[in-house]
């Protein structure tokens, strides 16, 4: 009985082996580029949908799905989305991009979620001549990959200085402490921008402490910082660590303002940190509380569909698809990748939920950020 079970198992595994090898060769051949008009445009999405960062990919998917339904309902242009999971892993991102380009024959790409993934997968799209747009890849140098690489994610270099400047003016900051997640590329990039912005504003950095993603204990860093009595604390990290930092800081009696990078800009921050999030400052193009019809409608629709407030990952993805739709409309083809790229590059005066938008000559977004502060459990504009 035991023997036969083991034999059966081996047989099954060998079967899988044969199937996989067969499947590899016998995959559907990609259809040749058809030029027929009026068909729906196929866009590929590479997102972090399983594993530790799946929360981000999930928000992005939700934002995209919402935008897709709207665009298709309008009927001017039809869009098909093909999702691929990148697991936050460079190799998987490369495979996903390759599959979308060469097997699914997509006309353009959205994603990947992480800047690191973009550095790995972006060159593939660029080589193949397929436009790719990051919606959350804020790191330095992303669009330097090549002229097919776009992003509508506001790089830290635009947002962070605004927040720092405003905070310095408002609270008359002289000396601050900085904390960042040192194993997260995106947070490190944010930290570097932050450091430069502080120097530009003549603020002294009295302590620089690091932690890692998924850390849960910040007592040592914060005790040290508390003893130095800074005027404010700057934090560059994802929302979970940021929220835990805020909580611990308030617990041990640090009451000064906290200024954060993009990671602060999430409803989850307030959800996790609760009362401790009060007074946290962040600059963001995305501000759900803004008096704007478009934003209100988006927030309401999103709430109706997913029963939660959209975060910036959702908002920026939502905008990204609308930008693509506008470009597709302009290019007049649902399959021509080069044309799509060229028309994307000329997008100007686009009104999205994250504000007025245009690409600069390096395919980075030109947009304004609003400096927000958490007040009574809500992001409100810091004036």
């Amino acid at each position, binding site marked *: 009985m035991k023997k036969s*079970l*083991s034999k059966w*198992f*081996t047989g099954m*595994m*060998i079967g*899988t*082996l044969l199937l*996989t*090898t067969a*499947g*590899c*060769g*016998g*995959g559907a*051949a*990609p259809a040749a580029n058809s030029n027929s008009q009026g068909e729906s445009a196929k866009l590929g999405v590479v997102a972090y*949908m*399983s*594993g530790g960062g799946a929360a981000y990919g999930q928000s992005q998917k939700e934002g995209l799905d919402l935008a897709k339904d709207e665009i298709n309902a309008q009927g001017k242009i039809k869009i098909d989305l093909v999702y*691929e*999971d990148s697991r*936050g*892993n*460079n*190799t*998987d991102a*490369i*495979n996903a991009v*390759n*599959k979308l*380009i*060469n*097997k699914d024959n997509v006309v353009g790409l959205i994603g990947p979620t992480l800047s*690191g993934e973009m*550095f*790995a997968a*972006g*060159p*593939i799209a660029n*080589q*193949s001549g397929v436009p790719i747009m990051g919606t959350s890849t804020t*790191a*330095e*140098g992303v669009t*330097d*990959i090549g002229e097919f690489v776009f992003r509508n994610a506001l790089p830290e270099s635009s947002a962070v200085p605004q927040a720092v400047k405003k905070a310095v003016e408002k609270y008359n900051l002289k000396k601050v402490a900085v904390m960042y*997640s*040192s*194993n*997260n*590329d995106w*947070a*490190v*990039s944010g930290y570097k921008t932050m450091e430069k912005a502080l120097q530009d504003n003549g603020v002294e950095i009295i302590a620089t402490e690091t932690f890692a993603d998924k850390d849960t204990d910040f007592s040592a860093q914060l005790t040290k910082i508390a003893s130095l009595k800074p005027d404010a604390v700057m934090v560059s990290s994802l929302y979970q660590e940021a929220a835990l930092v805020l909580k611990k800081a308030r617990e041990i009696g640090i009451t000064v303002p906290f200024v954060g990078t993009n990671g602060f800009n999430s409803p989850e921050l307030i959800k996790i940190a609760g009362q401790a999030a009060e007074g946290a400052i962040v600059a963001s193009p995305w501000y759900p509380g803004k008096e704007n019809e478009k934003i209100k409608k988006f927030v309401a629709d999103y709430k109706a569909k997913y029963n939660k407030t959209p975060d910036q990952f959702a908002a920026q993805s939502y905008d990204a698809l609308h930008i693509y739709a506008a470009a597709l409309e302009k290019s007049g083809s649902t399959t021509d990748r080069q044309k799509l790229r060229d028309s994307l590059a000329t997008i100007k005066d686009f009104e999205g939920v994250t504000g007025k938008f245009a690409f600069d000559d390096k395919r980075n977004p030109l947009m304004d950020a609003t400096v927000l502060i958490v007040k009574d459990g809500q992001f409100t504009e810091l004036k």
Partner: protein
Amino acid sequence: MDVILNQYYLQIAIFVLLNAILGVSIYLTLATGQLSLGNAGFMSIGAYTCAILTVKAGLPIYLGIPIGGIAASFISIIIGFPALRLTGIYLAIATLGFGEVVRVIVLNLKVTNGALGISGIPTLGAKIGKALSALGFPHGVGGLTAQQTSNLMVLVVLLLCLSFLIFFCTRLNRSRVGRAFAAIKADESAAEAMGINTTYYKLLAFALGALIAGIAGGLSAHLTFFIGPKDFAYNRTVEILTFAVLGGSDLIIGPIVGALLLTLLPELLRSASEYRLMIYGALMVAMMAFRPQGLISEETVRFWKRKLGRGMKQ
């Protein structure tokens, strides 16, 4: 032909080969019965050394990759002396710890650019493409696009690497050194009593494994345009381990088959991506319960030899 030359399949084939090389690296250390979970660490040493040399110092790739491998094996010898006194689980955990320490050091060094990693690494494909156009084939060869040609060339390069490794290992297995490895794996103290300097051969296997992992690291840097510390963390270690576990580590073909299966499986399971890792985990448990020696063991080969041999006679 189009199907085979589809860049998606070419790319997957390239990753299969890269992973197969990693599989060989863990196979080599396992050849003396030592489980090293430090291969991701050695891979990262190789990858960073090579990337830094090629990106910052402008060394050609064909020099950068072997130097990366040598750097990894050099480090392996330094930590191998104390580490190889440990056996079994202890060695596994110590090497796992080594990988983590390497990761933290990489995060903190300036030259590795911390968490931001090194981007814009020239790819093997691009280099080959350049060489091709220098040879007068700017638009590819024989009706293929330049990209297809260079990818195909990369594939050939990797295939050559892997073939050499297989050749190396089979030659090794049938030599004095290979027999010493096998003897140590079977019974370390009996091997020592038979006149084998076990420390030397264990260290040799360890260093060879690190060398190959380092070379694989260098290759991977030039295949993925970008490397960051996250690429060589715990998950990578487990991934490399599963190649050997699934395929079997008795014979060199085992980890290679394991790498093939485990690189293809995620692509096939793309539609079931949420369940992909759950299936992975369950598979590991089932393997240990039903076939701890892996899919391909010496018995399997013997069985098929006998069966085919009989078939031939009939």
